[in-house]
Each structure stands twice: as structure tokens, then as C-alpha cells.
């Protein structure tokens, strides 16, 4: 039996029916990481002994005939910006190279209560700022499908680890597409829940009004299982919400389904094969009886600049805490020197660039022209979506305009790199939920590169868009 390509339910059945032990399962993953991750670099740290000890406990429970939960004994990995007590948490930054998490994020508490086995922490763009994982302070992750290409970002290590069968699923964070875009590039499933639906406590803050934790999984079914465990109000995150919406969708309702396709998303720079694969995918729903409706999101052209001003502004304040005084990289002779050297040398290029942009946008004389204006444009974008959702149940688009690009292809031009988030950022700006699900492959130089279909849902309709996305898998 191939232990490395099982869904959560299959693992659970296998454990309960004693087809394999949890130790065998966990070791299979750890050995695969040890053997193959050198060339992919999807992990920044692996905790072998801890994982093995936990798996033995699961086996003990099973041998005693005790009931185990669905997620019990499932080997997983976590983006290295979410705190797991006792494990290093670097955020992909030299400034936190030796930082050890003193507590668990709420989502980790929830997963560990279910008994998952955390194998280690996944690589990412430094402080989640990037779209290719090339901004990691510890070297890039490579796409397991083609090692010359990026896995996407910023949760590139997470998506690569799941695609390479190094873990059953991973948790990532999505500020402008950082779960969905790497999922699309690596051919896996990535969910960005509605803002506030999953507690951000224990997620290192990048842009607090946009950040959201979401699962990266091999199937939509696994995504649903993980999401329904990690969601919910948390007193430790005042922006988290109590929401009982359990709207779902059954395939026999497809005749009444209205799918919105934004005309503004047919833009220059979208790869023609990506467009055609996504069109075919939407056609599948139409053939099953869904109605396709062209919609307009007229402020789409402002989404990326709005996103960069707001996220950089929030980042410049959130990252002020890394000052060399209390923890992390610290260097300097006097106080001013300590701040300037610790931050100047501890942060990488892209992080410094965004702190600078944010500081500029918030500084006296520019605040109204940049930050305040961006907040207002954000409301215009929100209005576009509200209007569209009066007519349609779900919006579909490509997740990303291109398949995975080559390492180094966009590092010299930050604006080009930013454009890879064109279809995903609006979902963060408006707080909606979105999912990327594989919808086909395109052949480039005899390598089959996956393409993702993005489904955008109304607030709190994660379960509904997952149900609709699941049809794509069949």
C-alpha cells in the first residue's frame, strides 16, 4: 500500500482497521522528506523524534481499542509563520533565525487536540511577502513538478510539501493569494477562508486586515475536514467571528447554480492556455446545467495597487516590533545603532522594500494621497462584489494568469511579481472566501504544469464553494 498518497479518511480507515500503524505511516513521511527534500527545500525544520513519539502514542490508543478522531495520527506540516510551541518559528527571516515559539497558535491547539502529528515547518517568502518563495531568507523552495520552476508563494513550502507527498496537508496563510496561488502552481487544493473565520492568534502578523489562515490539501474533502476543525470564534483574536453559516451545495442543485465570470478578468498577460483550461472547466459546469453569467467588477484594475499600499502600510507597523531589543537578531553599539543594524541587516530585500513603501504611504503629507485613498478604493472594490453577488452564487476565474514560472524570472522586477496576484488580491481586500482547485494541465517543454480554477464565494460560504469545487475533481 502506498502510504504517502492517502486522504485523511483513508488514513483513518487504515489505522482503525490496522492495515498499517501510525509509526509506519509517520516514518514513511519522515523518510521521504529526508531522502527527497534536499532538492525541493520545502521544510525549514523537521522534528523527527517528536513526531515518532506522538505516533507511538496513537498506536497505543488503537491497540487498547480506544476511539481515535478522524485527524488523529495524520502527519502534517505547518507554514513557518504559524507558532507551534517548542518549535522554531522563523517566518523565513534571518531576524528570527533562532526564535522558538513560546506558545501555540489557536489553529495548532485545535489540530493537536484532534491528534495530528506535526512533522515540521514549511518554507515561505520572508514574513509571507512574495509570490514565489524566492524571498525566503533561507533559500528558495522548488516546484516538485519541475525543479526549475517556483512553487508559488508565499506558502510555497506548504504547497510543495503537499504536492511532493511529504505531508498529508499543510496550513498556510493567505494575505493576497498566498495559499491559492501556490496551490495552483503545485496542483493541489488551497482554501482562503472568509476574513475572521479562522483565528489569527499565533500567526505572525503581516497585514492584519487581510491575513487569513487556510489549509493546503490534496483533495477538497481534506480541505473541508481541516477547515471545519480550525474555524471558529476565538477570544484571543478580536476580529474572529462566530458564524453558524453552514450553507452547502449538492450536485443535484446544479441546475439552479449561477456562475459569474468577470469580464475584467480577461486581461492582457493571461496565458492563453490558462484561459482555455479555465473556460473548459466552467463549460463543464454549464454542461451539467449551471447558468453562466458575465459580470462586471469595474474597479479590478485598482486591486493590486490598493493591495500593495494597504498591506505595506500595515506591514510597516506590524514589523516595527522586530527591533533587536527583546528577541531575534540583535546587533549594535548604542540604541539607534541597534535599531538600524538589527533591522537593516536582519530583514531581507523585499521586506525592507515593503516597510519603506508602507512608511512612505503613512508619512505626513502622503497619508491622504496613498493610504486613505487606497482604503476608499477598497470600498469601491467591495461594492463591485456585493453587486455581483446579488446575481450570482459563485464567481469563477483562473487562480493565476500563468502556470508556475521559472526561478529568477521575476525577481528583478517587483511590479511583474506583484501582477501574479491579480485574480486573488480582491478576495482579501473584500474579506470574501476563495478556493483554488486543479482544473487541468498544460504542457510546457514536455512537462505538464497544473492550472488552478479559483472559486470565490459570499462571506462564510466556504462549505458551499468547497462542494462546488469538488465537482471539478470528479
Amino acid at each position, binding site marked *: 500500500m502506498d502510504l504517502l498518497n492517502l486522504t485523511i479518511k483513508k488514513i483513518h480507515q487504515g489505522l482503525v482497521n490496522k492495515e498499517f500503524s501510525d509509526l509506519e505511516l509517520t516514518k514513511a513521511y519522515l523518510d521521504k522528506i529526508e531522502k527527497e527534500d534536499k532538492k525541493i527545500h520545502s521544510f525549514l525544520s523537521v522534528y523527527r523524534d517528536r513526531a515518532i513519539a506522538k505516533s507511538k502514542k496513537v498506536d497505543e490508543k488503537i491497540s487498547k481499542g480506544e476511539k481515535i478522531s478522524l485527524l488523529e495520527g495524520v502527519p502534517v506540516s505547518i507554514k513557518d509563520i504559524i507558532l507551534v510551541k517548542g518549535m522554531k518559528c522563523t517566518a523565513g527571516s534571518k531576524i528570527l533565525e533562532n526564535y522558538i515559539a513560546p506558545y501555540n497558535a489557536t489553529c495548532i491547539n485545535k489540530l493537536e487536540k484532534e491528534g495530528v502529528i506535526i512533522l515540521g515547518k514549511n518554507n515561505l517568502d520572508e514574513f509571507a511577502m512574495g509570490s514565489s518563495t524566492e524571498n525566503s531568507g533561507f533559500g528558495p523552495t522548488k516546484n516538485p513538478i519541475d525543479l526549475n520552476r517556483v512553487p508559488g508563494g508565499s506558502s510555497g513550502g506548504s504547497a510543495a510539501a503537499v504536492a511532493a507527498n511529504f505531508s498529508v496537508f499543510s496550513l498556510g496563510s493567505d494575505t493576497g493569494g498566498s495559499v491559492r496561488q501556490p496551490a495552483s502552481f503545485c496542483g493541489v487544493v488551497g482554501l482562503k477562508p472568509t476574513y475572521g473565520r479562522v483565528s489569527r492568534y499565533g500567526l505572525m502578523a503581516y497585514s492584519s486586515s487581510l491575513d487569513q489562515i487556510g489549509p493546503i490539501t490534496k483533495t477538497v474533502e481534506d480541505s473541508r475536514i481541516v477547515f471545519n476543525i480550525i474555524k471558529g470564534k476565538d*477570544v484571543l483574536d*478580536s476580529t474572529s467571528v462566530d458564524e453558524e453559516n453552514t450553507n452547502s451545495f449538492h450536485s443535484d442543485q446544479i441546475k439552479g447554480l449561477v456562475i459569474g465570470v468577470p469580464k475584467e478578468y480577461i486581461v492582457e498577460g493571461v496565458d492563453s492556455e490558462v484561459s482555455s483550461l479555465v473556460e473548459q472547466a466552467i463549460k463543464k459546469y454549464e454542461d451539467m446545467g449551471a447558468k453562466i453569467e458575465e459580470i462586471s467588477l469595474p*474597479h479590478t484594475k485598482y486591486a493590486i*495597487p490598493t493591495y500593495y499600499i494597504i498591506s505595506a502600510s500595515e506591514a510597516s507597523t506590524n514589523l516595527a516590533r522586530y527591533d533587536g*531589543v*527583546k528577541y531575534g537578531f540583535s546587533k549594535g553599539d548604542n540604541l539607534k545603532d541597534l535599531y538600524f543594524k538589527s533591522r537593516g541587516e536582519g530583514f531581507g530585500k523585499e521586506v*525592507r522594500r515593503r516597510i519603506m513603501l508602507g512608511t512612505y504611504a503613512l508619512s505626513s503629507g502622503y497619508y491622504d494621497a496613498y493610504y486613505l*485613498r487606497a482604503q*476608499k*478604493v477598497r470600498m469601491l472594490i467591495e461594492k463591485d462584489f456585493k453587486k455581483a453577488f446579488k446575481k450570482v452564487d459563485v464567481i469563477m476565474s483562473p487562480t493565476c494568469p500563468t502556470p508556475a514560472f521559472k526561478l529568477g524570472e521575476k525577481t528583478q522586477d517587483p511590479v511583474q511579481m506583484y501582477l501574479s496576484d491579480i485574480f486573488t488580491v480582491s478576495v482579501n481586500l473584500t474579506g470574501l472566501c476563495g478556493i483554488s482547485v486543479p482544473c487541468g494541465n498544460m504542457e510546457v517543454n514536455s512537462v505538464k504544469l497544473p492550472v488552478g480554477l479559483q472559486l470565490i464565494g459570499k462571506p462564510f460560504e466556504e462549505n458551499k464553494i468547497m462542494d462546488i469545487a469538488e465537482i471539478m475533481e470528479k
Partner: protein
Amino acid sequence: MIEKKEIKHIADLAHLGLTEKELESMQKNFSSILDYIEILKKADISSIEKDFSKKGMNNILRKDAQKEISKNERDELIGMFPETKNNYLKTKKIL
């Protein structure tokens, strides 16, 4: 193109120590990003102006209460201080 002395001023505000070379490369990148975000000036925000307020928003506060932590947790946190003296965080002189 944004002037170098302005880049230096922003870096000072942000407490970032940048070398001359880094300042120059920042100047170049920064200018292309600013050109790009310039498009926002074209957005018609007149419909938002009148209802842009904190309407519908409220603060969520908690008690500023002391939380007990175990000695282990305390030691772990203190262990991450760059410098300590008698179990206190040691900082550089500020005056």
C-alpha cells in the same frame, strides 16, 4: 524619480540601516512601484467620500489584566532576550 535624500529620510523613519548601494537600488525599485500605484489617483472615489466613516465599526476591548505564567514559560521568554541582567531585559542606554 524619487530623490535619494527622500529615500534616506524614509529609511530613517523606518529605522532601517541601508548601505549606499542599497539606497540606490531602493531608489530605482521604489520609483517603479510609485509609478505603478499612481493609477489610484484616477479612481473616482466621490461616491465613497460621503459615507466613509467609522460607521459600523466598534472597538473590542479586554481587561488589561495580569496573566500568571509558569516558571518554565518565563525562563523560555527571558532566554530569548539578547541581553539580560539579574533576569531582567537589558537595553542600551537611552539617555
